[in-house]
C-alpha cells in the first residue's frame, strides 16, 4: 500500500495539512502518515495527529533535508506540505514548501493554511486545468484515474488566452461542443469528463473557476520550474488558492503512484 506523507509543523496550519492528507489518502486507498521535524516543539503536531488517528514520526534535524529524506521512500506516493504557516492574505509559498516541491520528484499536495478542515475529510470534486499538451496530460492521467475510480468528480478546465485561443470558431454553440469533445478525446482519460472552456488569463481564471465550481482540490501538472516566466498558474495557485493544490511533475522521479 502506498503512503501519503503529511509533513506537519507545530502550528495551526498543520490541521488542514492533515485533513488534506486524509482526504486524498482515503480516495486513493493509501495509508496516511504524519511526519514532524521537531525544532521548537511537537505538542501541536503530535496532538493533531493523535486526534486524527494518524501515526506520526518525529525526528530532529534540518526540516527540509528530513522531509526530502522521508519523501524519498519508494512507498511514498504523495507528499503533503503546508503552503505557509500564516493565513494573512495571499502570500508566496514558504521556503520549505517551495524547496520541497521543486526538489522532490513526487507528487506534492500543497495545502494553504485557510483550507477547509473537517473531522471526516473527503474529496468530492477536483479541478484539473489542462493546456492541451502531451506531457501535462500524461502527468495527471494516472492519479486522476484513481481518484475517478474512487468516486471523486473530475472537472477539467481549458483556458483560452492569446497564445491558446483557437484560430477558427465557426458557430459558437457547435464549435464549443466540437472543440470540447475533441479536447477531451485528446487530453482526458475519460471522454465524458466535464470540461469548462474559459477565456482569460490562465492563473486568474483557474482560481476563479475553482471558487465558482466549489472544488476541493486543484490538480496541476508542472515542470518543477518556478523560475521567472515559468509556472505562472502554479505560482498563482500556490499563492492565492484557498484549497489544496496537487502538483504532479511531468517528469516524475521515484514516483510511487
Amino acid at each position: 500500500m502506498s503512503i501519503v506523507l503529511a509533513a506537519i509543523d507545530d502550528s495551526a496550519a498543520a490541521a488542514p495539512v492533515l485533513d488534506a492528507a486524509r482526504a486524498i489518502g482515503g480516495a486513493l486507498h493509501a495509508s496516511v502518515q504524519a511526519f514532524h521535524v521537531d525544532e521548537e516543539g511537537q505538542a501541536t503536531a503530535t496532538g493533531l495527529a493523535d486526534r486524527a488517528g494518524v501515526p506520526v514520526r518525529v525526528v530532529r534535524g534540518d526540516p527540509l533535508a528530513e522531509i526530502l529524506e522521508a519523501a524519498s521512500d519508494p512507498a511514498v506516493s504523495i507528499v503533503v506540505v503546508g503552503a505557509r504557516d500564516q493565513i494573512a492574505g495571499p502570500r508566496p509559498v514558504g521556503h520549505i514548501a517551495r524547496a520541497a516541491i521543486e526538489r522532490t520528484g513526487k507528487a506534492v499536495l500543497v495545502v494553504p493554511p485557510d483550507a477547509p478542515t473537517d473531522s471526516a475529510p473527503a474529496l468530492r470534486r477536483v479541478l484539473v486545468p489542462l493546456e492541451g499538451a502531451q506531457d501535462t496530460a500524461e502527468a495527471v492521467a494516472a492519479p486522476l484515474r484513481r481518484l475517478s475510480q474512487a468516486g471523486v468528480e473530475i472537472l477539467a478546465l481549458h483556458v483560452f488566452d492569446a497564445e491558446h485561443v483557437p484560430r477558427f470558431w465557426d458557430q459558437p454553440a457547435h464549435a464549443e461542443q466540437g472543440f470540447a469533445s475533441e479536447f477531451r478525446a485528446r487530453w482526458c482519460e475519460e471522454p465524458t469528463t466535464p470540461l469548462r472552456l474559459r477565456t482569460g488569463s490562465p492563473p486568474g481564471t483557474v482560481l476563479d473557476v475553482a471558487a465558482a465550481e466549489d472544488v476541493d482540490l486543484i490538480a496541476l501538472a508542472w515542470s518543477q520550474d518556478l523560475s521567472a516566466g515559468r509556472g505562472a498558474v502554479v505560482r498563482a495557485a500556490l499563492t492565492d488558492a484557498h484549497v489544496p493544490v496537487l502538483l504532479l511533475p511531468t517528469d516524475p522521479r521515484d514516483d510511487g503512484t
Partner: protein
Amino acid sequence: MSRAPRWLARTGPTACHPPRSERCDRGPWGDGRLPSPDPTAGWTLTLSSDGARTTTRRHDSLTTLSSGDLGVRGDHEGGDDPGRLVLVAGAFGTSTDGLVRPLPGPGWTDLGPHGPPAGGRRLLDMRDGTLWREAPEEGLRSFRFVSLAHPGIAVLRAEDDRRGESWPAALEAPAPSPLAAEQTFHAGPDGEGRWAETVGDRATITASARQWSRTTPDHRRVERLAAFRAGEGSQPDRAAELLSTACATGFDELLREHRRAWARRWAGADIEIVGDPAAQLAARFALFHLLSCAPTHGEATVGARGLTGLAYAGHVFWDTDVFVLPALAAILPDAARAVVEYRIRRLPAARARAEGRGRRGALFPWESADTGADVTPGSMRDSEGNRVPVLHGDQAMHINADVAWSALHYIQWTGDAALMDAGGGRLVLETARHWADLIRRDDQGRGHIDDVIGPDEYHERVDDNAYTNNMARWHLRQAATLARQAGDPEEASTFEDLAASLIDGFDPVTGRHEEFAGFDALEPMLIAEIAEPPIAADLLLGRARLAHTQVVKQPDVLMLHHLLPTDVPPGSRTADLDHYLPRTAHGSSLSPAICASLLARSGRPDEAMALFDLAARMDLDDLTGTTAAGLHVATMGGLWQAIVHGFAGIRPTADRLEIDPHLPSRWEALHLRVHFRGQRVAITIEPRLITVDAADPVPLVIEGEPTWGPVQIARTEGSRRP
C-alpha cells in the same frame, strides 16, 4: 436485445423464405488478394501515424469514403477505434441533450484484436475512391471502398498473420459518442450473414452483411460486404436485397464499376495546378470530398461536415447553399439538383415557420436537419461560462436569399430551367414573399430590414445589414420576374417597388458599403491590433467588447461582391476590400477562401495565396483543431470557388461562361473541367494562353470579349499574371 427481422415473424412452412443473404451463393472468391496501392503523386493522400489519439481520429476523418448516401470514416479495423463511424444521409435522431443529431449506423469494419489502435500507414487513393491501410504492429493490411456505382454498399478486404483465430462478426454496435443521436442496437444472424440496425426516434439504419474468410500457410484473409439502408423503420429486406445484388456482382466487378464511376466524375471535375504540388493535392482532396458529399438522385442533406463526422450535428446551414452548391453545380450537376431538391421539399416547413412568426411566405431556418424544422440550438455558453441565447435562429434572415440564390445559380451552370416548374419557382417566390412582409418602410418610403444578423456574426441585432438588404433586393427582383411570368403583375410591382426602396448601405462619397447602419461609428479597430489573423476574436476579446468594434468575423459586405458581382456599384469591390479585409478576423473557416477569391478577381492573386493556403490546409493540417470530428466541406467548396471564380475568373451568366483569369505567380498553368449547360468544358489557363475545349459550341466571354468555344486565345497584352 437481439430482435429477429420482421420477415421471420411469419409462420407456416410456405412463408419461411430462405434469407436473402443466403442467395450470395457465388463461387470461389478468387484468392481474396488485396489490390495493390497506387501512390500516384497528386492523387494519393498518404498518412502515417503511431496510433496516438491526437492523430488517429483526425486521420479517420481525412480518409472518409462516401457515396453521398453512405459515409464511412477511415477507421482502424484492428483495435477499438472510438472514431469508427457509419453515417447515412438524412438519418437523424434526438440526442440526450435534446438536439437533433446524426444517427450512427452499425459498425462493419471491426477485424480485431481489441485494444488501443496501433499505428500504421494509410493511402487514400482519391482517383478511384479507395483506402488502403497497413498496420505492421497488428500485422494487418486492408483495402476498402464505398461503392459509387451501388449506393449503400461498402466493401472490405483484409489479411493478417494471425492464423487460427476467427474474424469478429461482420456488424457491431456503433462507437458511443456524445455527439450522436441516442439509439438502440439490435443484431443477429441472417443465414450465413448478419443483420443489424440502429434505431433512433426519427430513423432506423438497417445493415446486412456477409463475410468470407480463408486461411493460407502464410496468412488469413477476409472479405466483407455490407449494405446499408435508412428510413423511418426497419428495412431488413431492402438491405438484404441490396447485399444480395452486391454479392452476385462480386468484388472484382464491384471494384471495376466503382472505379469507372469515379473516373466519370473526375472527367468532369478535375483541377490540375501546374507548379504547385501542395495546392494540387489540396485541390484534389477538396474535390474528392465534394464529389462524394451528396447523392446524385433524390434529395441531398449535406450537413456542415457532410458524412465525415458528427460535428455540427449534421445540420444544414447556408454553407451548403452558397459554399457547396456552386462547386457541385459545375462538377456534379445531379448532386447540385439534389441539394436544391432538399430545400424544395422543405418548403412546407419553411412556410409553417413563417406563419408561426406571423409572416407571409416561407422562412427557412438557420439550421435544418431531416424535417426542415428549425434545429438551431437555443443557447450556448460564452467564454465566461454563462449560458446565453443563440440569436441566429431568429435573426439570420439572409438564409432565405441564400437558398434562392443557390437554386438560381444552379440554373446558371446547368441551364435546367425545368427546375422552376419543379418547385424552384415556388422556392424563389415564397421566400421572397417573406421579405415583402418583413421590410419596414419609413416616412420617406425607404425600405429597412431591422434586427438581423448578417454573415458577420460578431455583430448581432443590427439594422440594414448590407449583405442582407442587397441579397433581399436581388431576390425580390428575381421574384418579380417570376411573378410577372406567372401572370401576377401586381405582386411583381410590389416586389420591384420594395426592392428599389431598400437601403443598400452604399455611400457614393466613400465608394464603399457600410456593413450595417451605424457600423462606421464603431471603434475603428483593425484585426492586426488584436492578433494575427485568423483568430477567433470573439473568444479573445469577448462578444460584448467585440460588438463595439469594427472587427468582423468573415466576409459580409465582401460576400456580396462574391455572390452578386454585377449587382454592386462599379469600383466598389476594391474600396470594400481595402476597408474590410484589414478588419476581418477570419474567425470562420469559411472566410479565407472567399477573400482569396476576391483578391484574385481584383488583380491581386499573389496577395490571395496566403488566404488560399489557409483554406487549402484547413483539414489537412487540422487548423481548427476539430478535423477529427469531421471535415469542413463548405471550406472545400470555398476553395473550389477561389480556384475557379477567383484565379480562373470563371463565372456562368444567363447565357455565357465568363473567363477572366488572374493566376498567381506560383502556378505555371491551371487546367480545370466543369459542366456548363449540359456539356463538359475543359479550360486551360497559361500565362499567355487560354484554351477552352468542348464537344459542342459553348458561348464564352474571355477577358471581356464575347466568343465561342472551342477556342484558343492569346491573353491580353500586359497579361493579368504578375
